[in-house]
């Protein structure tokens, strides 16, 4: 591995890291603005024009608050919990292809940190690791409400991971690859062979199941049972204060950003946009427009997360489990069977 490649990847990692932190920061602002819009209020409007400096003010507040570690807690694990939460949130974006490679001089620079051939499974691994941050933090707090929240988070994540995995299997059957780069490349353009190329139009049921599971995996309303404040005070982060609490809240927004990006690239064509091959632009411009398209799709999904949060009320815990095990898992198995039948029929009659 030569030095140039290392530097190139290093810069890419830093940029993606900075962008995801920035997006997460402004998601907190956007969430309040969206909430205000949906409830016919004004929202934050004091810090800067339109409240644009609000996230900075929040950040300063979080950093300067008193840091409290409960006496009966396990100190090491108490600190390890939020660190793990934010770590797992940040490493998920490594396999997402942000656009087609840029060509500068004779060098091509892929806008993806790494293209491992099991990219989707890597994301699953990171998602399943994410629950440890909550579980360890909740247990180390030595508080009943925290423990309840942590246990709810663990069982919710495990239950919805199954449905999520099964919905992905149907997608993999039609794409035939585990690499995110290949999956996005297959969705090139918007319309080909008399049908949409984007996977959402080939796997509508699979996409719906994946979307619901993504809401559950990021602990967003209507599935925010782990931090359900009417029953559990603050859930797993009841005992947390200062920036450690900030890390937990921030991790949720980064998770939202990463899962929006994953949904955009798996089901909505990633960096591909309609008529991209008819504009007559050269590859570099297409690449830059691709980044814009990718980010727009991602922002749309982040908006969807917020939209649903202020529209749908929270589920009851048994309803959550019923939905996961008795509705989503059978539906995704049906989806696999239907996809199998469709692929067979297409192979036999439409070749």
């Amino acid at each position, binding site marked *: 591995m030569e030095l140039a490649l290392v530097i190139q990847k290093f810069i890419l990692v830093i940029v993606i890291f900075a962008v995801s932190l920035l997006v997460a920061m402004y998601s907190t602002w956007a969430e309040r603005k969206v909430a205000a819009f949906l409830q016919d209020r004004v929202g934050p409007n004091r810090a800067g024009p339109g409240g644009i400096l609000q996230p900075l003010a929040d950040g300063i507040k979080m950093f300067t608050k008193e840091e409290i570690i409960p006496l009966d807690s396990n100190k090491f694990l108490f600190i390890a919990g939020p660190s793990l939460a934010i770590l797992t949130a940040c490493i998920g974006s490594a396999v997402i292809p942000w656009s087609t490679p840029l060509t500068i001089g004779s060098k091509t620079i892929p806008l993806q940190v790494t293209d491992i051939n099991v990219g989707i499974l890597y994301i*699953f691994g990171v998602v399943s690791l994410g629950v440890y941050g909550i579980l360890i933090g909740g247990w180390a707090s030595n508080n009943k409400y925290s423990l309840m929240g942590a246990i709810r988070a*663990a069982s919710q994540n495990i239950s919805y991971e199954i449905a999520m995995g099964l919905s992905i299997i149907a997608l993999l059957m039609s794409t035939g690859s585990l690499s995110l780069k290949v999956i996005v490349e297959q969705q090139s353009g918007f319309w080909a062979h008399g049908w949409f190329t984007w996977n959402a139009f080939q796997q509508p049921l699979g996409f719906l199941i994946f979307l619901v599971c993504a809401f559950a995996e990021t602990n967003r309303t209507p599935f925010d049972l782990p931090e359900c404040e009417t029953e559990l005070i603050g859930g797993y982060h009841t005992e947390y204060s200062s920036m450690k609490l900030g890390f937990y809240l921030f991790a949720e927004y980064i998770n939202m950003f990463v899962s929006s990006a994953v949904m955009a690239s798996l089901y909505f064509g990633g960096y591909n946009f309609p008529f991209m091959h008819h504009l007559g632009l050269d590859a570099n411009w297409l690449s830059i427009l691709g980044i814009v398209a990718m980010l727009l799709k991602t922002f749309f999904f982040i908006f969807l997360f917020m939209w649903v949060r202020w529209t749908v009320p929270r589920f009851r815990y048994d309803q959550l489990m019923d939905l996961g*095990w008795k509705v989503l898992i059978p539906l995704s198995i049906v989806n696999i069977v239907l996809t199998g039948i469709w692929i067979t029929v297409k192979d036999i009659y439409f070749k």
Partner: protein
Amino acid sequence: MGISLFYLVAFLSIFFSLLVIFSKNPVHSVLYLIITFFTFTIHYIILNAQFLAVVNFIVYMGAIMVLFLFVLMLLNLNRQSEPAKPLLLKLTAVIAGMCLLVTLAGSVKALHTSNPVLLHHPNLGLVQNLGRVLFSEFLLPFEISSILLLTAMVGAVLLAKKDETQPEA
């Protein structure tokens, strides 16, 4: 570079698996076990078995160990509530452990690396090659085990389902 990395990771595996046994708190034990599994994942990556590495990561670290941790947190084990084991049980455990040690030592002694498969097929662990082998040579066992897993999952849902016909006691 490769072999020194292997020795480092192997040392870490053994170190953390020893900590699993020697730590007093069961929750700490499970956390050390998770780290041990993580070092196994690194071993698989060193062997270029990406698929196996990721599956080990998801299944063992992500699912099974979460359940372990889950159960231990609910049980809330500590020394006061732990009943003292009878002497006979302790003795049996020691003898059984010694037997396992002797067997392991014997089999390690009989080991020899005459035919390292990986040297002939360095890309054996990539998902494409693995899939080709599974769907050609081992198709029947693969399908049967997948049906078995599916049955187990459906069975779990069915067991958890409340019996509607019987009135609640």
